[in-house]
């Protein structure tokens, strides 16, 4: 390993549930860790979920514990709005570039909110996938960690920007911030960059991006959240009407050689859970889940059994072939074949939720000399890794518990690279 001297620091790319876990497990075992997160806050995708299956509990519960673990652990440092920009060196002795985008708010921010009061510009709320708007001076979300405001670049260099900056009595707003790149040493790297929902507009016959009331399953999480853009009411985007008849279209992209040939593992349970969200909104609400196979593994089967028992949730074994819109009402016509009766399904729904699959975030070219990918772009941990290890959904589509398991494992793989015993 280079000159034989080993840098003990573990660099974790991604501050989602996988990255946080890998970082914490390693740090609590006594190792120095740096987390690099592209969002202005830690927590990743799960912060945007309303509930976890199968317990239907709030993700913030576990996140709060993890943040508390970070607070009480001096061995962990983290950068938000930061990305890994380059790597050189060898296992045990990496030099990494970290690109940090300007937040325009420094550590003096007390979250008092005065800046937002004077800010008039509104931007589509990234946390809610643009389902609502937010001030250009904003706290990303109420549980944001670190709890610190962000200034959107759109008002930087404007008169309004000045006014916003002046509104801060703590000198926390610094519109002069520039993008900076840090160079650090690391002994090993854990790649936990997470996933994105498959770009559903590529499944053209489903009309995502064309018909406003066809949404993906992540947007559904925000709609269901009591603190989301609709205050927990499941309102369809076209007319903010409460969605009563909702279709869940499984394998939207997954198990499809024209899109994602693999199964995304979580979409079945996600839809079962979201059908349950719908049940809570109103006694007339009814859900139909169109599926190929319901894949509720191990004890998750219990959750499937529970949902099946609800007579307002229908299961139809059919891959949906076509979604069209009634231009007048923006209702959606969903077409498929009920393969259990052989009948053609042609039904009208208020809202269609596409159970879009998981696409792993892309591993940059320059990292590939250190870590291998499978044909679908998932990271392989198989002993041929050169100091860089995948953790969580970059390895295989998986639910939270499995991602945490995998990330705990990744932490040990990383430690093995740097231990001097």
């Amino acid at each position, binding site marked *: 390993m280079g000159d034989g001297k080993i840098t003990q620091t573990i660099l974790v790319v991604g501050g989602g549930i996988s990255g946080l876990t890998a970082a914490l497990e390693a740090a609590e075992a006594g190792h120095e860790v740096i987390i690099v997160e592209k969002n202005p806050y830690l927590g990743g995708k799960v912060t945007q979920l309303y509930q976890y299956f199968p317990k239907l509990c709030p993700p913030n519960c576990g996140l709060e514990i993890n943040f508390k673990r970070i607070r009480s652990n001096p061995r962990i440092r983290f950068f938000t709005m930061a990305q890994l920009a380059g790597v050189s060196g060898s296992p045990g002795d990496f030099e990494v570039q970290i690109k940090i985008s300007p937040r325009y708010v420094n550590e003096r921010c007390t979250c008092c909110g005065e800046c937002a009061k004077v800010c008039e510009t509104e931007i589509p709320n990234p946390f809610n996938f643009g389902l609502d708007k937010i001030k250009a001076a904003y706290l990303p979300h109420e549980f944001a960690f670190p709890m610190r405001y962000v200034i959107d670049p759109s008002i930087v260099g404007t008169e309004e920007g000045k006014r916003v900056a002046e509104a801060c009595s703590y000198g926390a707003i610094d519109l002069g911030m520039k993008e900076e790149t840090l160079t650090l040493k690391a002994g090993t790297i854990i790649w936990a960059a997470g996933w994105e929902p498959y770009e559903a507009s590529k499944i*053209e*016959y489903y009309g995502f991006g*064309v018909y406003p009331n066809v949404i993906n399953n992540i947007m559904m999480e925000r709609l269901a959240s009591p603190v989301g853009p609709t205050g927990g009411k499941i309102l369809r985007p076209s007319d903010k009407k409460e969605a009563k008849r909702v279709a869940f279209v499984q394998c939207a992209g997954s198990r499809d050689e024209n899109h994602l040939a693999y199964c995304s593992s979580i979409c079945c349970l996600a839809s079962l859970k979201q059908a349950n969200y719908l049940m809570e909104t109103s006694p007339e609400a009814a859900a139909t889940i169109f599926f190929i196979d319901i894949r509720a593994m191990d004890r998750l089967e219990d959750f499937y059994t529970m949902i099946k028992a609800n007579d307002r949730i229908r299961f139809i074994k059919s891959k949906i072939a076509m979604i*069209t819109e009634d231009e007048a009402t923006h209702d959606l016509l969903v077409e498929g074949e009920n393969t259990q009766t052989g009948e053609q399904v042609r039904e009208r729904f208020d809202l269609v939720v596409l159970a879009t699959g998981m696409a792993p975030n892309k591993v940059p070219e320059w990292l590939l000399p250190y870590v291998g990918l499978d044909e679908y772009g998932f990271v392989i941990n198989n002993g041929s890794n050169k100091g860089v290890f995948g953790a969580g959904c970059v390895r295989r589509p998986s639910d939270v518990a499995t991602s945490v398991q995998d990330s705990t494992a990744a932490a040990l793989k990383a430690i093995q690279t740097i231990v001097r015993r």
Partner: protein
Amino acid sequence: MKYFLYWGCSLEASGSNYLESIRPVSKILGLEFEEIDDWNCCGASISYIGANDLSIKVLNARNLALAEAQGGYDIVAPCSSCYIQMVKVNHEIQENEDLKAKINAVLKEGGLNYTGSIRVRHLLDVLYHDVGPEKIRSHVKKPLRGIKVAGYVGCQTVRPYGEYDSVERPISHDAILQALGAEAVPFPKKMRCCGSGIFLTEMGYCMNLVKDILEDALNHGAEIISTVCPMCAMNLEAYQHRINKVLGTNFDVPVVYLTQLMAVAFGLDMKVDAALDRNYIPPEVVLKKAIGH
């Protein structure tokens, strides 16, 4: 730019107005078309009834081989049925060495051989990508302003490979209509099948398919329908009155070829070049509305 124009059997007869309008339009756009000497029928979609798959492949392989020997330019098919037959066979030959060997073994009987070098294209592809809406717009003398056209793409035109446009939500046809100054109406059923090869023998079923397409076009305000395939044109145009009789509708909507509209917009002769007089349901009325006289 030089191509082979494989116009196929229909364009010499029921689709003659297509061929007639292609010639002057392509001249203006600088498309140089050559005929594949002694070309044969593509087998269309119906020949599977009389022949095994290999025979149909051989039919197309012969044309491909002839074209290869004759200069190897891209083959352009104005007929979607010819296009899909040829493009499919060509792909399969290019992707499957065993198949290529098998086919060449057969072609040998006629002293032919095909290496797989040819590119098969639809006329719409050439008009949209090689010429492009901009260039087309530049030749427009009499914009079809205010005319609501339903750009019927038809099923086989962009399938199965979607090589030049989306197989579900294509845009090329509408883009060209807009370049001509016309208003391309939104038209969900623009990809819905008209019955193509089995229309004649399954009229009972297929008339309903055509009815749905025509209704959808009209409901979206279309005054005229544009097509890029002789099968589509035939099925949508020639049977309207029969459909009215059987299904109690009252269709009388003109169905023209995209190239006919181009000829008109380019200010060419409505009769000689656009061959509008060959249309069953006269389109002149609608077209005059825009271009006067």
